[in-house]
């Protein structure tokens, strides 16, 4: 059973994904951008699994969902840590 809030969250995430794709050139200037965007994409995958979980293979998708949330968090944290170490290289703003 698909929950309304999960579906709405997925829609918002997909909207952000469209924004990311359309602005990928500018977002490349983000330090270590691939890691940061990977964190976001894994989160989107987690949100997608959340929706799928309500339709089929509940256990599998549930597992994948939480795995993606965890991986996204780890990637985001690693990105913050790496960028903070190399902050002197960028001085972007």
């Amino acid at each position, binding site marked *: 059973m698909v*929950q*309304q*809030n*999960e579906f*709405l*969250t997925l829609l*918002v*995430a997909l*909207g*952000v994904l469209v*924004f*990311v794709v359309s*602005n990928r050139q*500018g*977002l490349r*200037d*983000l*330090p270590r951008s691939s890691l940061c965007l990977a964190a*976001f994409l894994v*989160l*989107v995958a987690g*949100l997608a699994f*959340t929706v799928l979980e309500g339709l089929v293979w509940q*256990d599998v998708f*549930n*597992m994948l969902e*939480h*795995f993606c*949330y*965890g991986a*996204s*968090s*780890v990637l*985001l*944290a*690693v990105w*913050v*840590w790496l*960028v*903070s170490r190399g*902050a*002197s290289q*960028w*001085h*972007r*703003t």
Partner: protein
Amino acid sequence: MAQNLIIGLAWLSIAVLAGALGVLIAGWNRVLGRDARRLLTGLLVISILHGISNWGEWHGIPSPTDPLEDYFLLLLPALWGSFLYVFLREHSRAELHRSEERYRSLTDDVLETTAAGICILDSLGHVVWVNQAVEEHSGLKRHEIVGGHYVGLIEERLKPLVDDPSGWAAEMLAIFEHEGEIGVECHVLPGADRQERWLECRGQPIHSGLYAGGRILHFYDITERKRAAEHRERLLKVLETQKAELERFVYTVSHDLKAPLITIQGFAGILQENLARGELGEAQTDLERIERAANRMEKLLEELLDLARIGRENIAEAPVDLAGVIAEALEGLRSEIDRRGAAVTVHATAPAVWGCRTRLVEVFQNLIDNSLKYLGNQLDPAIEIGAEPGENEVVCFVRDNGIGIDSKYVNKIFELFEQLDPHCAGTGIGLTIVKRIVETHGGRIWVESEGAGHGTTFWFTLGNRRPPEETEVQDAQASPSPGAELAD
């Protein structure tokens, strides 16, 4: 198993996110802008709460996110989107700022300090920007130039500054009508707030950007180039004159040296015949004639060598007292003056001049000797010698009441081997030597005579000081004197 894994993942994410949040709060503030940092902090906080929520969900423990019920999860993509959007906005602003800085650096550090003047006109012909060099070239302040229309600027402000204003203004106005690149030269006259200089203005259309349809004008200072070209022209003229002199010299020398040689050859043949006939008295006369011809040839060669040395030798220059020079010259000619019974008067009131004493004595000796030779049948011969101070120079003269010079010869007498009286003793080199010495001393020489029988005055000037800027040209004029090769 799966439940434990999920709980473990939740713990892991909570732990690393908390660490990342700590790093961020501890001072990670140089990579992102202020708003992006705040959103990232919010994203980390929400991610931690999400981890806690997941953990609580499996343990049945109420989570801090419960009041937000099911829509808490919505915050995550929303914050991600906001964060990335704000980053892009801040990044664009930073890029714009850097671009402005680059432009400012370009204008302030490069275009403002370049030696070439730069002037930008918009499509309507208004001056929108000029650099520092334009101010220096024109002597006008920037606020007097920028904003005005170029036609008014040229006609009212710039035209009075240049030589040939009408021609220059017409050419400058044509720049704006011309589609391609065009160049105009102008001579900026010196003024209170500008130097004299030559400028080359090159104008070309602007095809793109804010001032598309306008013109960019570059003003290059070509003063040094112009001066070098003028200097080269002067040297070329000197070279041409010297070449002509050299050709004339070679012709004259070969002609005049040939005369005693023919005499020697002729009398050598006669001598042989007289000896064959045993006429020793005639042979003695022949030998005397041969000796005289050889002596004349030797004198000619010595004087030619002396002429060639002038301007090439390293003479010791020093302040020279002209009264002493005249006295020395007269002393050398005392016997001849006495023989001719000439009355000599000296007016030497001039200050000391910078030059070579020996050469200046030679000048006066040659001129006095020349006067003595051409006194003619004057019953009351008189020679007047003077050296008086003039304006930035000393004016000297040697005047006699001798036979004078016909006006048609006054320009010829300084030429090599030119003699008014071919029967008169002398080689015809003396006045050429005098002229050369005077010129190497930065002076000039001329002769005045009211005609035959009215006496002659030789005038010459000597510089009080050597003008340093003309030394090179004078040296160039003087050094390769005709026959200089003979001295080597």
